[in-house]
């Protein structure tokens, strides 16, 4: 039963990735990332693997991840979205339909990649592909979108992918290190939000493609 829930969560994560890569409304993307954060936090609890941590450690870490990645950070991004008044992404470098198609190809690539990695015992065969796919989707958002806020969302997805990868590897972890990582990510997104504000007020838009004055051109 638990492993069914686990597989269900992994499938949900894959679907969320596909949804986000084709979404144009930013509020929708932020909601997707929030659900992804909640799932990423809850996933270690659904696994049956020994992580070398006492019960209270696992539960408190899950609670911390759900709180920060599922609730606080999306709220912060929604706050920025409201203040910066953008609702839609401008036409990205790769159109939305093409993004979705590329995303599906990346899913296939992730499954193939996971097969080539050395096998790990006792792990759901869908876990590693999901993690790699989330990583790829985050990178896709980072490189193909123009709005600064969407790049922040892409970065959050990248981090979620890294977390999932660690979970899929059954890496034993220290509570302190994991909490430190969470704290770092929280402060990082906070600073990025401030940067988005400044971009908006300096440039009257938040199209990062316009941030191209610093370059080495032929003088």
């Amino acid at each position: 039963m638990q492993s069914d829930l686990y597989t269900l969560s992994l499938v949900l994560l894959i679907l969320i990735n596909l949804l986000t890569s084709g979404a144009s409304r930013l509020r929708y993307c932020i909601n997707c990332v929030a659900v992804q954060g909640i799932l990423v936090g809850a996933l270690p609890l659904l696994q049956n693997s020994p992580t070398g941590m006492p019960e209270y450690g696992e539960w408190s870490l899950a609670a911390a991840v759900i709180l920060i990645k599922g609730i606080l950070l999306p709220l912060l991004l929604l706050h920025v979205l409201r203040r910066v008044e953008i609702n839609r992404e401008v036409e990205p470098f790769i159109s939305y339909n093409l993004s979705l198609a590329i995303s599906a190809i990346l899913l296939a690539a992730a499954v193939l990649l996971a097969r080539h990695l050395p096998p790990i015992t006792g792990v759901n065969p869908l876990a590693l592909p999901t993690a790699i796919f989330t990583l790829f989707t985050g990178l896709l958002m980072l490189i193909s979108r123009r709005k600064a806020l969407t790049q922040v969302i892409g970065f959050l997805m990248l981090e979620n992918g890294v977390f999932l990868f660690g979970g899929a590897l059954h890496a034993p972890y220290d509570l302190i290190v994991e909490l430190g990582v969470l704290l770092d990510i929280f402060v990082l997104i906070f600073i990025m939000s401030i940067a988005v504000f400044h971009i908006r007020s300096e440039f009257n838009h938040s199209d990062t493609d316009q941030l191209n004055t610093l370059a080495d051109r032929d003088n």
Partner: protein
Amino acid sequence: MIFALLILLPVAAAAIVYLLPSPRWRRRMLPLTGLLHLGLTITAIRQTPLRSAGGWLLLDPLGAYFLTIMSILFLAISWYAWSYFRRQPYHAPNDAHDPFHHPQEHGARSHEAQFGAALLLFLSTMTLVIMSNHLGLFWIAMEATTLASTPLIYYYQGKTALEAMWKYLLICSVGIALALLGNLILQSAAGSLLADELATRHTAINAQWLKLAVVFFLVGYGTKMGLAPMHSWLPDAHSEAPAFVSALLSGALLNCACLGLLRIYRIGLTAGIGDYCSELFRCFGVLSLLFAAFFILGQNDFKRMLAYSSIEHMGLILLGIGLGGEAVYGSLFHVCNHSFTKGMLFLLAGNLLLIYGTRSIHQVTGLLQTSAANGILWLLGFLAIVGMPPFGLFYSELLILKSALAQHHYVIAVLMAVLLGMIFAGMAGAFLKMTQGNAPELPHRKRYATWNLLPPAALGVLPLAAGLYLPPSLTTLFKQLAAQLGG
């Protein structure tokens, strides 16, 4: 105890700087903290090796070396910063505002206070990076340095600074996220993240997973180190940040990332994948040299040129480590020479900016006429950074080249010679054009003090002295460190 002091002292100083109402005392806190930090460093290095917190914090000879370099560099920079802020208090551009703060914290005073606090937090996080033995803690500290240095790059505000800061933030964060992946892979393969324990372990670690981890670490921490092709944040960040921040970034932050790669290299050597790691290091080293050479030629912004020079030298250091043998000694020696020389050059670049008001090489002429002291130091710095004897960089580059030939890596040796030659030509053209010729009209020349000259001069003496005479204690130290890294 000494660990706690080294890390928490700058944090306390940062809090003081932020809360202090008097600007004069705020500025004096910077060199004061620098002095205290250097004192603590000297006390600490006498007691190496030091281990604490169950092995999470460690000060081994390698760490002590990097810590001393950083501490000396910070002292010089804090002195320069004190003198700089005395003469040029911050003037906010018209549209600057900070939306997450309440309006009563407006104004020049709070901006300088934020900057000073960020600078000291930067020092603290870099100290933590150098002293971290647990790779998870190392990651957290590395990410923290990105967070602490972002406001430093954005000091002047305005459009280009914003662009530089955004690129820095995003590229370095993505890089470090990949390094986190490396961390997780290593932890699952090896079961522990304590670097010194992994480096002396005798039970085998799964080679395939370890190689994967090394690749992620190299790309991840290599981004922070400025290796090509992950270097695109470096020229922008260095040209937009205030000069002394660039000096600290080039001279200390890149070193911290290099230290991380060295620790991982040791783990790789013990685990038996040394050849694989060396080959990767050589590739990235030569690639960085290539990028640097091509972008230095025809460069018009002298701070960007110095930034590409940093990429070149980091490439050289990695190449030396990858070559093995004598080149490892050369690389380690290169680290301190490069830090001090680059620090000196960036501080002088700051002076040039004050005098000429522009970063364009074409518009800066007649430096020897305008300010002889700056001109002479600028020329000496140029000679040092391109590797002229008797400066220390000559010896380190020679050792690396010699080792490449001795190990029959002829392609690498030829590439290295050609690219270094290209860099020399590019920089010579720029530096000589800037120092000679007639001085232009300088109606907007800002005043700078003699204090602005002493820190770069002091920093410049060090590579000269190292090149002329290296005390035997340092030679044995380098040999010992090189032996650990396969030299």
